């Protein structure tokens, strides 16, 4: 983080989006976001239940949202929040479609372990 740039930007205007003095620094948010994202990635790679995998993917998306909002707040820019809203809407659409697919597969085979979804190979 660049303390000079930060204090200059804070002094530059009364932008309500800018962080207040003494707030949690940007890097903490970014580290948290990166950690959440990695937890999500590891979850996708090691879990076998599609619903848990999907929850891990949602965790990844929300980690990204945290990054967007932290950047937006740090920069005093609304773009980050807007992007996060779009991500939320898209994630909702994915939830609806994903659950629909998983329910239909669950109806037909009573078991939704990804290891057993393997009619096709090659």
């Amino acid at each position: 983080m660049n303390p000079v740039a930060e204090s200059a930007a804070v002094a530059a205007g009364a932008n309500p989006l800018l962080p207040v003095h003494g707030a949690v620094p940007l890097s903490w948010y970014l580290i948290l976001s990166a950690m959440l994202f990695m937890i999500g990635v590891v979850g996708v790679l090691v879990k076998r239940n599609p619903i848990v995998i999907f929850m891990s993917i949602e965790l990844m998306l929300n980690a990204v949202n945290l990054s967007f909002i932290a950047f937006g707040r740090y920069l005093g820019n609304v773009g980050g929040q807007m992007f996060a809203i779009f991500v939320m809407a898209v994630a909702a659409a994915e939830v609806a479609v994903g659950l629909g697919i998983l329910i239909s597969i669950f109806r037909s085979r009573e078991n939704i372990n990804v290891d057993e979804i393997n009619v096709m190979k090659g």
Partner: protein
Amino acid sequence: MPGQTNSLLNSYIPVLCMGLMALFLVVVFVGLSRILGPQRPTPQKLAPYECGVTPIGSARERFPIKFYLIAMLFIVFDIETVFLYPWAATFRHSGGMMLFNLFEMAVFVGILLVGYVYVWRRGAFEWDN
């Protein structure tokens, strides 16, 4: 910057203390009753308590699929309202574009309405079949 970070951290110390106290008390009380209390288990005592009524089956029952359908529809239509908020927040600053912005939101709601009509006419809201 380090000064700011420290003052920020300092303000969280009371919260941390309270958390530790709460944890301590819980561990002590639960631990003491475990160690000191007499333990004579009977089947009646071990059964899950359901307001005095005899339990019927496991709580891990399957839900009818209808609940999922309603939940899915709820998520989709619920999240769409998230776009209304930024629109409403900026609407009053739209100046000469006010009428156009109103029209834009009408288009957005219109598209949602098409989806709603489709879901409705396809019978997704009918609970009984």
